[in-house]
C-alpha cells in the first residue's frame, strides 16, 4: 500500500516497526484500508495488557491478492469501536477479547462470557488478575 497517501488522510498515524500505530478513528481506518487497498481478510485481533491500565489491540489485516500482511495497532482503555460491521470474523475475535481482557466493543451485540462460566469474576489474561477465586478451592 501507499504509505504517503495513507498518511495524508490519517495524519495522526505513525510507523513503529512493521506496525502502523493509530490513536483514534479505528473503524474508519479499517474500513478505508479494506475498501481502498483490498485487505479483504482480518486474520485475527491480538490484545495485550500493557500493565498500566491500557491495552494494545493489533489488527492483522491480510490482502489475499498480494499475500501481504498489515498490522494496525491501537492503544485503548477498556472500550473501543467494534469493526464487526466491516469484518464478520471480528465478532468472534471481539467475543474472545471481551471474555479474557474485559474490553468492551461498542457495536458488537454478542459480547458475553465465552470460555469462562457466566458470573465469573475478573478477566484471566489481564495482568492484575487475582487467582484466588474461591470456586477454585474445591479441588485442593
Amino acid at each position, binding site marked *: 500500500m501507499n504509505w504517503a497517501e495513507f498518511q495524508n488522510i490519517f495524519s495522526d498515524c505513525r510507523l513503529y516497526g512493521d506496525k502502523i500505530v493509530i490513536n483514534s478513528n479505528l473503524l474508519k481506518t479499517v474500513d478505508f484500508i479494506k475498501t481502498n487497498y483490498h485487505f479483504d481478510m482480518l486474520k485475527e485481533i*491480538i490484545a495485550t495488557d500493557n500493565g498500566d491500565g491500557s491495552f494494545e489491540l493489533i489488527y492483522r489485516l491480510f490482502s489475499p491478492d498480494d499475500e501481504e500482511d498489515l498490522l494496525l495497532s491501537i492503544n485503548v482503555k477498556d472500550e473501543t469501536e467494534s469493526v464487526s460491521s466491516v469484518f464478520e470474523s471480528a465478532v468472534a475475535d471481539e467475543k474472545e477479547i471481551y471474555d479474557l481482557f474485559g474490553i468492551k466493543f461498542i457495536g458488537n451485540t454478542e459480547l458475553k462470557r465465552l470460555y469462562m462460566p457466566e458470573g465469573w469474576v475478573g478477566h484471566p*489474561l489481564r495482568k492484575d488478575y487475582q487467582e484466588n477465586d474461591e470456586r477454585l478451592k474445591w479441588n485442593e
Partner: protein
Amino acid sequence: MNKLKLNLGPQHPSTHGVLRLILELEGEKILSCEPDIGYLHRGMEKMAEKLSYIQYLPLVDRIDYLAGFFYSELLCRTVEKALNIELSKRVKAIRLILLELNRMASHLLWIGAFLMDLGAVSPFFYAFRERELILQYFEKVSGQRMMNNYFVFGGVRRDIEFLEDIEEILKILPEKVNDYEKLITENPIFIQRTKNKGILDKNTAFNFGITGVNLRASGVELDFRSGDYLYEGIEFKPVVLDGCDSYTRYRARVQEIRESIKIISQALEILKSEKDLNQNLLNPFTLSLPEGEYIQEIEAPRGLASVYIKSTGEKTPYRFKWRTGSYYSVNLLRKLLKGAYLNDAIAISGSLDIILPEVDK
C-alpha cells in the same frame, strides 16, 4: 408455526467434540444458529505466560490432537526465527515428512468421520485402517501415536528411521484413496446430501476469516505452504476447486491427500542424499527470546494457524496468542446454517472440519 429452540450438542456424536449449537427452528428450517463453545477450555494462553518455553512445548500438541505436529512446529519455528537459528536440510526434510503424514492422517480421519455423520459407516473403518499405518509409524519414530512432542527447539528429538515404512505407506495410499473415491465420490446418496449444500462463496469466506481447504474449495488459490521455508525447493500445486459446497470440500481434501503423497516422496529424496543430521539444539534452561514481538504462520489441516509472542526478554513470554483455523469455521456456522434445514446441519458443520480443542484452546 411455533418457533422451537433446539440444543444440538454439546454431547452429540456428530459434533466432533463438545460443540453446542443453539438452533432456532421453524418446522425443519433453521432461523438462526448460535454456537456455544468453551466446554474444552484449558487456558493455553494463560499457561504460556507462566511456563518457560521448554515446559510449554509438550502442551502445544494438545491444541489440536489430530494435527499435533503442526503446533509443535509452529512454536519451535517462532523460537528459532526469533533467535536466528538455521536448520539443516535433513532436519527440514524430517519435519516436512512428518507434517505431511500428519496432514494425511488428519484428512483421513475427517473423511471417515464426515461419512459417518451422513450415515455411511463403512468408509470410517477403511479410513481408520490407513490412518493406523501412519499412526504406527509415528509411534515407531517418536514413541507416541498422537501427542508426539517430537520437534524441539533447533531440531528433532532423534534421527528418523524406518524409511521403508514411509515408502510402504506411499505405495498403499494412492490405491486406497482410489477405493474411497469409487465408494464415495459417485455415490448418489452422498451427492444428494452434500451437493449445493452449505454454499460458501469467496467474499463470505474472506469476510469470515476462513482459510485452508475450506477457502480453496471456494476457488481461491491461497496456500500458505507456498511461502513456507520448509517447502522451499519442493514442487507442489495447491488444490483449488470451484464448487463452494460441501461436496467440493470433500473432493478438495481427497486431492490434498494425493498432493501430500507427492510432497513426501520429494522430501524422501532429500533425506536419502543428506545423511548428516547436524542439529543446532538450544539449551532449554537458559532459553529466552530477545525483547520484541514475533509472529509465525503455518498452513495446518484446518486452515491458517499462527502464533504471536510478545517477549520482554524473560524466560516466559509476556503475551502468547494462538490463531487457529477452526475458531473461525465455528463462527461461520452462524451464517451457513441460517436458512438451511435441520437434516443438513450436521452435513454442513461436518464438512468444515471443525475440531473443538483447537477452538477452545
